[in-house]
C-alpha cells in the first residue's frame, strides 16, 4: 500500500503542475464572466423596459393599448411629437419609441389590423444587444392579446382573423445615425452576426494553429537538441527569430486562405437567403476596407507568432510546448466570444479596455466596424497591433540572445522568480 502511495504521489506531482492548472483556472474565470453576463441580462429582463410612447389616435382602442404599455413599462416620453420622442429616446436608455398612429382604432373596428409603429433604438449589433428588445415585443404581444379579448367581449363586430391578430407592427430601426424602415433590430443583428462571425472563427483557427507551430518548433528544437547547433552557426539570433516567425506566418496565411475558401463557400449558402440588403442603407465593405481588414489580420497573426515565440523560449520540450499553447488559445477564444455576443460600443469601459488590449480582437471587430463606418476604431486597432508586434518581437529577439533560451528559466541572485518573463523584462530594463 505504501508503494502505491509513492506512485500516486509521483503521478500527482507530475500531472498537477502550474502549466496544467492555468488553463483550468482561465476556463473557470471565463465561465464565471459568462455567468455574470447572463446574470446581468436576466436581471435586466425582469425590470420594466424603458420606452417612449405616443398616442396620435386617442380612440378607445388606442387608449387601451396606451394603458397596457404604460402599466408595464417605464416611459420616458408620452407627448405627441415623433421627432421629440425620438430625441428623448436617443438621449436616454430607451429601447424603443412606440407610436399609435391616427386611425389605429377605426382600422380595427373597420375589420383591419391596426398598425403600431415601433422606432427601435439599436445601440449595438451583438446578440446580447438585441435581447432587451424581446421585452418590448412582449409588451406588444400583451397589447394584441388584450385587444383580442376586448373584441371577443363583443364590443365590435369583426372577422375571426382580426380578433386573432388585431394589431401589426411596422418596424423602423435607428442605428448608427441611420433610419432603416421596415427592418427590426433582431433581423439586422442576425444578418450582421452571420456576416461577421466568419472572420473571428478564421482568426481563432489560424492563431491557434500557427502559434502552436512556433511553440512546438521551439519545443522540438530543445527536445531534439538541435537548438545549440543552430545558435552557433554564423547567423544572427535576430535572423533565426524572424526566420521562424516568417516561416510560421507563411504557413498561417496559407491555412487562412484554405479556411476562408471553405468557410466562405459555407457562408454563401446563408448569404443567398438573406432577405435584407444592408448595403442599401450604406452598410457596405469596399476595397479599402478589405485592405484594412487584411492589415489587421496580418498584424494579429504576427502578434500571435511573436507571443508564441516568447512562450516557446520558456518551453523545455515538446510536451511542455503543448501546454504553452493554452494561453494563446484563450487569448484568441475570449475576444471571439465577446465580439460574438456583444458590441464594442455597448461594452462597459473596463470591457472595452480589456477587449482592445488583446491584439486578436481587432480583426475580429474590424468587419463589423468597417461595415458601420467606424474606421477610427479599426485604425486605432491597427496602430495598437503594430506597436504590440514591435514590442513582442523586441522581447523575443532580446530573450533569444539570453541564457534563458537554453536554460528555460530565470535565476536571480536573490531568489527564484515566480514570473520569469516579468523578471526577464525587468532585468533588461535595469541593464538599460
Amino acid at each position, binding site marked *: 500500500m505504501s508503494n502505491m502511495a509513492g506512485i500516486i504521489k509521483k503521478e500527482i506531482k507530475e500531472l498537477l503542475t502550474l502549466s496544467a492548472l492555468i488553463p483550468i483556472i482561465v476556463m473557470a474565470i471565463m465561465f464565471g464572466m459568462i455567468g455574470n453576463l447572463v446574470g446581468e441580462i436576466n436581471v435586466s429582463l425582469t425590470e420594466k423596459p424603458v420606452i417612449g410612447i405616443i398616442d396620435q389616435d386617442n380612440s378607445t382602442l388606442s387608449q387601451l393599448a396606451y394603458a397596457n404599455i404604460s402599466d408595464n413599462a417605464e416611459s420616458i416620453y408620452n407627448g405627441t411629437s415623433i421627432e421629440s420622442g425620438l430625441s428623448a429616446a436617443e438621449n436616454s436608455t430607451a429601447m424603443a419609441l412606440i407610436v399609435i398612429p391616427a386611425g389605429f382604432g377605426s382600422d380595427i373596428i373597420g375589420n383591419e389590423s391596426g398598425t403600431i409603429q415601433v422606432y427601435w433604438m439599436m445601440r449595438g449589433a451583438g446578440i446580447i444587444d438585441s435581447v432587451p428588445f424581446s421585452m418590448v415585443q412582449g409588451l406588444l404581444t400583451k397589447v394584441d392579446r388584450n385587444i383580442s379579448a376586448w373584441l371577443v367581449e363583443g364590443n365590435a363586430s369583426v372577422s375571426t382573423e382580426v380578433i386573432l391578430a388585431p394589431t401589426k407592427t411596422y418596424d423602423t430601426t435607428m442605428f448608427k445615425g441611420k433610419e432603416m424602415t421596415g427592418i427590426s433590430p433582431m433581423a439586422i443583428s442576425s444578418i450582421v452576426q452571420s456576416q461577421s462571425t466568419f472572420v473571428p472563427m478564421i482568426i481563432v483557427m489560424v492563431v491557434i494553429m500557427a502559434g502552436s507551430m512556433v511553440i512546438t518548433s521551439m519545443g522540438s528544437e530543445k527536445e*531534439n*537538441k538541435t537548438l545549440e547547433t543552430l545558435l552557433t552557426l*554564423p547567423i544572427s539570433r535576430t535572423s533565426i527569430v524572424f526566420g521562424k516567425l516568417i516561416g510560421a506566418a507563411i504557413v498561417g496565411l496559407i491555412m487562412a486562405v484554405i479556411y476562408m475558401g471553405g468557410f466562405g463557400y459555407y457562408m454563401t449558402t446563408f448569404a443567398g437567403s438573406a432577405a435584407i440588403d444592408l448595403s442599401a442603407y450604406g452598410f457596405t465593405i469596399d476595397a479599402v476596407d478589405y485592405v484594412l481588414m487584411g492589415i489587421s489580420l496580418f498584424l494579429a497573426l504576427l502578434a500571435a507568432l511573436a507571443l508564441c515565440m516568447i512562450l516557446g523560449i520558456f518551453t523545455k520540450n515538446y510536451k511542455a510546448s503543448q501546454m504553452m499553447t493554452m494561453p494563446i488559445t484563450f487569448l484568441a477564444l475570449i475576444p471571439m466570444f465577446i465580439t460574438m455576443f456583444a458590441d464594442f460600443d455597448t461594452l462597459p469601459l473596463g470591457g472595452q479596455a480589456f477587449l482592445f488590449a488583446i491584439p486578436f480582437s481587432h480583426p475580429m471587430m474590424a468587419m463589423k466596424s468597417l461595415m458601420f463606418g467606424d474606421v477610427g476604431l479599426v485604425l486605432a486597432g491597427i496602430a495598437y497591433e503594430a506597436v504590440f508586434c514591435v514590442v513582442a518581437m523586441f522581447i523575443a529577439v532580446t530573450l533569444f540572445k539570453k*541564457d534563458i533560451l537554453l536554460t528555460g528559466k530565470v*535565476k536571480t*541572485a536573490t531568489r527564484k522568480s515566480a514570473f520569469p518573463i516579468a523578471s526577464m523584462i525587468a532585468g533588461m530594463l535595469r541593464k538599460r
Partner: protein
Amino acid sequence: MVNMPAVEVANLVKAFGSFQAVKGISFNVNEGEVFGLIGPNGAGKTTTLRVLSTLIEVTSGKINIFGQDLVKDAGEVRKRISYLPEDAGAYKNMTGREYLKFIAQFFHDLKDSRAMVEKGVAIAQLGERIDDKVDTYSKGMARKLLVARALMIDPKLAILDEPTSGLDVLNAQEIRKVIKKTVSEGTTVLLSSHNMLEVELMCDRIALIDNGKIVESGTPSELKRKYESSNIEEVFVRVVS
C-alpha cells in the same frame, strides 16, 4: 616554434544567478594544437565550451578567438568555429545529406557548399544510409553525422564536447582519425572528454578543471612525469581527489 594563440581566455567567470559554474579560469589554446579540457562531472567543462562557442553569455572575463573579441564580435567568431555539443541532435525529418546541406548553406560564402557536403558525407561514412531520414539512425550513426557536420566546414577552431560519445570502439577510432586529419589540415581543436585514453592519444596539451577552476595544465607527458603516473587517468585521479 610557438604558434599564435587561437583561443585566449582570461579570468573567465560564468555565473547562473548566485551559482558560479566557472570561477575565473585562464588558458590559451595555440593554433593547430589539440587542447583537452578534462574534469569530473559538474566541474565546468561544458559551461566553458558553451561560453566559447557563443552559446551562453560571459559573466566576466575576456575571451579572444583568433584575435576576435567573443562578446563584441560574436558573429565573426561563429564564422571561424564549429561546436559539437555532447548531446546534440539533428533534424529528424531530414535525411543525413539534407541535414549536411542545411548546415553548409550557412557557410556558402566561405567555401563551395557542394564540396563541403561531399566532405561531410565522406566523414560520416554512412554509406547509402546518408539518404535515409535521421529519424531512422542509431545513436552511433547520428553521432557520426554530427561529427561530420562539425568538421566538414574546415573550421579554424573545432570545439568538441565528448566527440566519440555513444560510439563503439571502432567508430570512435575512426572519428579520432578524422579529427587528427582535420588538425593536420589546419584546424585547432578544443575538446572535452571523459575518456582519458582518448585525451592522452589526441591532446597536445591538457587542462584539468575542478569545481570551476583550472587546477592543473600541461602536456600529457609533463603531467604524467609530475604526478609519477603511467597514464592520464591516474593523473586525473590524483589531481581531482
